C-alpha cells in the first residue's frame, strides 16, 4: 500500500473506529470490516499498478528480513528443531520453539538465504516435501503441548523439481493444510515477503493471517502469469497489476485479517522496527483467538476458509 493511501485510510478509520491506530498495530477484526466498507463506499482503487509493482520489488528485496531475523528479534530461548524423521532436513523451512512475550510458542517459516552460498543451501526458500513434513511434525508437537503456532511465509513457491514431485510435493502441501485445519491451539500466520502459491498456503491455514505492508501473496508469480497470459515473462508488471497480489487488495478480498505496517521505505530499512510491528500484531492475534475454546477456535478457522472465494 502506498504511504499516502495508507495514512489517509488509517486516519479515517481512526475516526470511524475511535481506536488508537499507531504504526505497528495491525488492522484486524471490526476495523478490517470497516475498512472494506469504507473502500467500497468510496470506490477508489486500493493501490495503483506502480504501487503494486513497488511491493513486488520490496517483497523480494535482498536486504529484507527473513524468518530467522524475526526469530532473533521476537523469541527468547529459541530451539530450532530439525528433520522430518524420514529422510531429510530441509533447510528451506525452519521450525522450532521459543518464548514469545513470556510464553512458549512454536514457529515455522520459510527461510531464504542472504549470501549466494546460503541462498543455494536454503534453495531460495523453496521447500521440498520433506520441509512440509518437518513442519507438520512441529505443528503436531505444538498441538500436543498447547503451544500457539506462528507461521512466517516467504517463498517463491514450493520447489518444482523432479525429486520433489517423486516424493509427493502436492500431497504434502495438501496434508500440511489439513494439519493446520486440525490444530486446536491458536495459530497466526504472516506473509513476510513472497507468498508464492501452494508453497505459501501450506503454512497459511491459520486463525489469523496477516501480510507485511509490502509483502505479496499470489496464486502464481507475476512472471509465471505473464508467461502464460502474455507469452512474455517480461510483462510481469502488467500481470501483477491484473492479479493484485499486494496486501491492500488481499485485505479487501477478505483473504487476510490485517496488514502489518512496515518502516518507512520498507522492512529492509529497519529490521528492528519491522520485527516490533510484526511482534505486536502476532501477540494481539494470539491473545484474541485464545479467548475461544479449542473446538470453537478450530470451527471458526474452518468456517473462515470455507467462506473464501467469489461466486455469483
Amino acid at each position: 500500500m502506498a504511504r499516502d493511501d495508507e495514512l489517509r485510510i488509517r486516519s479515517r478509520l481512526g475516526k470511524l473506529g475511535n481506536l488508537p491506530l499507531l504504526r505497528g498495530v495491525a488492522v484486524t477484526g471490526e476495523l478490517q470490516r470497516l475498512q472494506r466498507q469504507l473502500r467500497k463506499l468510496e470506490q477508489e482503487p486500493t493501490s495503483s499498478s506502480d504501487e503494486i509493482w513497488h511491493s513486488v520489488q520490496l517483497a523480494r528485496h535482498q536486504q529484507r528480513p527473513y524468518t530467522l531475523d524475526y526469530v532473533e528479534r521476537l523469541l527468547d530461548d529459541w530451539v530450532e528443531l530439525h528433520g522430518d524423521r524420514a529422510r531429510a532436513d530441509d533447510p528451506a523451512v525452519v521450525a522450532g520453539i521459543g518464548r514469545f512475550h513470556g510464553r512458549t510458542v512454536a514457529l515455522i517459516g520459510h527461510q531464504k538465504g542472504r549470501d549466494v552460498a546460503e541462498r543455494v543451501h536454503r534453495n531460495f526458500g523453496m521447500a521440498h516435501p520433506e520441509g512440509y513434513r518437518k513442519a507438520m511434525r512441529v505443528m503436531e508437537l505444538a498441538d500436543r503441548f498447547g503451544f500457539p503456532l506462528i507461521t512466517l511465509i516467504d517463498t517463491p513457491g514450493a520447489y518444482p523439481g523432479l525429486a520433489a514431485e517423486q516424493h509427493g510435493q502436492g500431497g504434502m502441501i495438501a496434508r500440511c493444510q489439513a494439519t493446520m485445519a486440525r490444530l486446536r491451539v491458536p495459530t497466526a500466520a504472516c506473509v513476510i515477503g513472497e507468498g508464492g502459491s501452494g508453497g505459501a498456503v501450506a503454512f497459511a491455514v491459520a486463525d489469523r493471517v496477516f501480510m507485511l505492508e509490502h509483502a505479496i501473496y499470489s496464486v502464481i508469480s507475476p512472471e509465471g502469469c505473464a508467461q502464460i497470459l502474455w507469452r512474455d515473462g517480461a510483462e510481469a508488471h502488467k500481470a501483477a497489476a491484473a492479479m493484485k497480489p499486494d496486501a491492500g487488495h488481499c485485505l479487501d478480498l477478505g483473504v487476510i485479517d490485517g496488514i502489518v505496517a512496515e518502516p518507512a521505505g520498507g522492512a529492509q530499512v529497519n529490521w528492528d522496527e519491522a520485527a516490533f510491528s510484526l511482534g505486536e500484531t502476532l501477540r494481539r492475534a494470539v491473545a484474541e483467538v485464545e479467548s475461544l475454546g479449542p473446538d470453537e477456535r478450530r470451527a471458526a478457522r474452518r468456517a473462515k476458509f470455507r467462506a473464501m472465494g467469489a461466486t455469483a
Partner: protein
Amino acid sequence: MAERIDVSIETRGAAEPAPAGKRHPNTCPACGSHYREDELRAAIWVCRQCGHHFAMRARDRIAWLADPGSFAEQAEDVRSADPLGFFDSRAYTDRIAEAEMATGLGDAIVVGSAAIDESPCELAVMDFAFIGGSMGGAVGEKFARACDAAAEHRVPLISIPSSGGARMQEGILALMQMPKTVVAIEELHAAGSPLFTVITHPTTGGVVASFAMLGDITVAEPGALMSFAGPRVVSGITKEHLPEDFGRAESNFRLGHIDAVLPRAELRPYLARLLRLFRGA
C-alpha cells in the same frame, strides 16, 4: 553448512507415448487410430487398439458411472465471479461466458447425489474442457458443497478431478480454494464419510496440492498425469532430465502416491465395491 537437501531420485523410466501436435480429438494420440463419436462413446472413450484413455466430459462420465436416473445435480447455479475485474487479452467474464457456451457447464465441476450399483454416494466430477479444469470460486464452492451434502447424508464422496490448477484470473481468491476444499474435507471426515478420488488426465497444480491428494482411497486412470508442477515447468526451471513416465499414474503408483491404476472399465465395479465396504462404516 552449505549442503542442500538430499534429492536422490528414482531414475528408471517407463515408455509412455508423448502427445503429438494438433490432431482431431477423436484420433488416438498414442496409436493414431481414428474413431467415430459413437464408437468412442461405446468404448467409454478408451482406444480399442492401444488402451489409451481419452478425456471424458463430466456429464458423460456421470451418465456412465451413476445408476440410470440416480443423479440429481446440486449447486448448478453457482458461477465464478470476477473479483479482480481481470483482463488480459480479453476480459475474464468473457472467457467464462464463452466456456459456458462451449461446454454447456456453469464451471469446471459438476456435483450431485447419485447411486452406483444401488449404493448412494455424492459425486464431484471435473471437466477439463472448461478453462482447463481450472479451480476458481465456483469449483471450490461446488466441491465444498459436495462435501457438505455427503456429510449430511453420511454417504461417501467420489471426487474425479481433472485440472490444470488454480485459475489465475481469480488471483489470490483462486489460491484460497485450496484451503477451502481442504477444510471441507476435514468436515466431511468429522461426519464420518470417506472420500474416494479418481485421478484423471491431467490433474496438476493447486488441485493436486489440495483436494485431489486427500482421498482416503485414491486411484488413477492409466497414463493420467498427476503432478504439482507439470513436466514442462520442472524441466524448464530445473533443467533436469525427466523420466518418460514423469508424473504419470504408473510412476505415481510405484512411488506410493496412489492405491491403484485402474483401467476405466474396472472403475465402476471398484467404486461399487468401495461403497459396499464403507456402507454403514
